[in-house]
């Protein structure tokens, strides 16, 4: 049996279920309680779970992320919401210098079972300071688990698995997808947060993506199918530790790869994926890897420029056709 729900509802179901299952889980973040969440993801949870479990916090990103780390060290299972990735740099010290290093510096004595949720990516014309795609920053750091929620199934299921991790997890959710409705199986469940996923099988080319790229690539693949091109689409899901086996196996089969992401092109996730393809499956390739990435400009406000700043479905379709037809 299927159900239709928005990405927002899927996220909320995930949080709700986590709170129900474990008394040590609590949610804290800016405006998560009385306001109902800046994006209404946690609306109603304060009424359902009370102030102890749903904590509004002041605008102190470093302070409350650090407090989340402390609470995790002391046996709690905090879900810390940083309203958006744009503000997360104010907490970068805590995430990188503390959460990611404490286990190592203590010789394995400490663990930081903390989940930090962040709204990420472009929404609608929010300009240069509210439209960042900074998954690559976090994916650079050993000690962090970095997850990207590209589908409704993951929106509902990833948090539960993330909370089972003994290590700090940065969970990227996409504000631009909150209202997007999809039909998923009522009992759909995900089983792991360690692997990427083949979302559509194909034999002609591998399209590798994550986050906001996932549905765009699936739509592009559907259009390509009508043109007789059978594309395989992979959602990376786990940006660190990166699961290379899934995409390497696919590339070995299709012999062509294109990587799609909203993040800036230089030193990005696609840089890493492309390098690994080159290092590990070079002789399987029929053509150079192609990357479609964010244009290297602070996000402009005007809609037409914003749209042009990140890869769109048509860009993907065009790029794949060009690769297949050797134009």
């Amino acid at each position: 049996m299927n159900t239709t729900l928005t990405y927002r509802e899927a996220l909320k179901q995930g949080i709700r279920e986590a709170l129900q299952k474990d008394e040590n889980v609590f949610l804290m973040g800016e405006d998560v309680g009385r306001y109902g969440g800046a994006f209404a993801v946690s609306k109603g949870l304060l009424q359902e779970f009370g102030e102890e479990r749903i904590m509004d916090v002041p605008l102190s990103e470093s302070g409350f992320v650090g407090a989340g780390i402390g609470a995790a060290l002391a046996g709690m299972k905090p879900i810390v919401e940083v309203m958006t990735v744009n503000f997360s740099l104010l907490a970068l010290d805590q995430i990188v210098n503390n959460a990611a290093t404490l286990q190592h510096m203590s010789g394995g004595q400490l663990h930081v079972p903390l989940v930090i949720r962040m709204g990420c990516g472009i929404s609608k014309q929010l300009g240069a300071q509210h439209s960042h795609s900074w998954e690559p920053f976090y994916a650079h750091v050993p000690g962090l688990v970095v997850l990207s929620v590209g589908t409704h199934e993951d929106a509902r299921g990833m948090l539960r698995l993330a909370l089972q991790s003994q290590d700090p997890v940065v969970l990227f959710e996409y504000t631009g997808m909150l209202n997007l409705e999809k039909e998923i199986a009522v009992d759909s469940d995900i089983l792991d947060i360690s692997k990427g996923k083949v979302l559509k099988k194909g034999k002609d080319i591998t399209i590798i993506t994550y986050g906001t790229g996932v549905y765009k690539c699936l739509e592009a693949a559907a259009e390509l199918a009508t043109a007789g091109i059978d594309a395989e689409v992979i959602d990376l899901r786990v940006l660190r530790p990166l699961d290379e086996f899934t995409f390497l196996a696919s590339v070995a089969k299709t012999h062509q790869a294109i990587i799609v992401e909203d993040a800036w092109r230089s030193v990005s996730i696609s840089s890493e994926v492309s390098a690994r393809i080159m290092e590990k499956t070079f002789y399987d390739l029929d053509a150079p890897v192609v990357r479609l990435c964010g244009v290297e400009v602070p996000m402009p406000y005007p809609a037409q420029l914003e749209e042009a700043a990140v890869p769109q479905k048509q860009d993907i379709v065009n790029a794949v056709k060009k690769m297949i037809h050797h134009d």
Partner: protein
Amino acid sequence: MLQSVAKALPSDQKQGLLLLYQMILIRRFEEKAAEQYSKAKIRGFLHLYIGEEAVAVGVIQALNDDDNVLATYREHGHALARGIDADSIMAEMYGKLEGCSRGRGGSMHLFDVSKNFFGGNAIVCSHLPVAVGMALASKKQKKSNISCCFFGEGAAAEGEFHEAMNLAALWKVPVLFVCENNLYAMGTALKYSHSMTEIEKKGAAYGIESVAVDGMDLTAVIDAANKAVQKVRSETKPFLLVCNTYRFRAHSMFDAELYREKTEVDEWKKRDPIPQYQQFLLEQQWITEAEIELMKQKIEHKIQMAVDFAEAGTWEPLDQLTKFVYSEK
């Protein structure tokens, strides 16, 4: 009243002597560490606690075993006062597997979960929010333990200090903030880094009770710390204790001390906490000169044993390089 001038006796003679032992142990341990550093046995940054011993010893004696302690990168003294063995601290500074952090941390990152000792934190002020979070967990779990967080006055200029103070007061969590005001943030004097140089006054902005105490006088620190800990624990709320102190040595081993006069250092040395406290114990007739000598010999032996232990320690094999990045499933 923001200045505390009261003094308190240790709970009994045995405890009184233990605190002297701890202060001398810290002093001699640090001197030996400097020596081993100059022999290149210890590397990286090394920050000595010499001159400030009364603060760690006076505050930590007020804590229970299940209280959490978080300290800075100048934390050898706190680790010793908390009861972490000198052997494992020295081995840690050598980078040996037998160190309290398996050699992965070094001088600035001493950890011992069995003592509830959570670093060894080397980003100034970064551990204050963590301490608040640990105290929040205690409150949520309805435990009676508190979190005690040491930091320098340099940290009080960081934004995280203010965030942590606000969160602690807002959430009413049992955290004791202990500011070790040694007057210099590396080489920048208090007056060049704070518009309000009386750090204890900063507590008021957050409704946090605060007191300043002479950090060179162990009996004064004991009194202030006992009262502060009692408040934090019984009223479940934060407290700011400022211990005015002085480091006799350079900031680290790479410091030519261009920023202060030698005469100033000499003046402070006249207030050395160890002779002061020894005098107190002698007057109290809790100890004799001969017993002090005996204690010092015992400490010399202990420190030599620590060096021998570290020397005999094991280098972690290279095939373990990537351990402790992610938890083993």
